[in-house]
């Protein structure tokens, strides 16, 4: 099943062929730090141990810490 991932910061669309993948594994595959990103699966916020099933629509965005 194809997992479609939109990365807001770079406006990239990435497609991955997976059955299921944890948020942590997904971010690692994309080369993004868990500590700086929020992931939405079909519009719902998911955290690092949550599993994202193939076929899901995923949005990833960076959370900035500066002020």
């Amino acid at each position, binding site marked *: 099943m194809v997992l479609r991932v939109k990365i807001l910061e770079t406006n990239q669309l990435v497609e991955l062929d997976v059955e299921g993948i944890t948020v942590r594994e997904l971010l690692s595959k994309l080369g993004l730090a868990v500590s*700086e990103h*929020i992931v939405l699966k079909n519009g719902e*916020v998911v*955290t690092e141990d949550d599993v994202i099933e193939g076929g899901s629509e995923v949005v990833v965005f*960076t959370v900035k*810490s*500066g*002020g």
Partner: protein
Amino acid sequence: MGDLEACSELSGEELERYSRQILVIGCEGQLKLKKSRVLVAGAGGLGSAVLYYLVAAGIGEVVFIDDGVVELSNLQRQVLYTTEDIGAPKVLVAEKRLRALNPHVKLLPVQATITESVLEEHVKNVDVVVDALDNWEARFTLDRVAWRYSKPLVHAGVGEYYGQLTVIKRGVTPCLRCLFRGVKGGERGRVAVVATTPGLLGLLEVNEVFKIILGVGEPLYNKILVLNGKKPSVEVIEIKGLNCEDVCES
């Protein structure tokens, strides 16, 4: 209270000073701003923009907390300060500038590090809390105290050309600690950022404060605004599906 009655509670000088804004929000709205108290945590890049506009617009009382002194590397984006202020405590310089801008606003500068005890003293006395901080540890402390007193917390964070904005309110949204659980980092004072990003996000924070105080429009509850200043683009992401009771109520 009718608008005419509200107008009578503003001085002639205030009616003239805020005349362009009163055309939009009426004397009633202006009086709501005047009777409100806002706490701003941080007087850096976000804080400079937030403080300037809160005070210009006529918020009644502004409490602002920062422990820093003005440094040369601040001046590219922290527009409250000038070259001659280098080495001076930020909150004292800010107080001087803001008082010159609008003497009607009661200012309470607090030169202190953000800690639970400092926040405990001030958060309970205000109507809205603004996060203008530069690291997650201090932000989550601010979130904890604002949550305890059920005060709306306007959050923003910036870096490079990017930033995010949301409003936290107990009973309406998840707390910041739950929403951004797992997020870490933010070395104090070492952010990589272009001059305009904190200005843009700071003004959006003030806009959220106005909506909350005036009861107009839709505050960013359960939504995160994500700014990409490079494109430029603004995306508003709806937050759902989080179970936060264990994190927020502990």
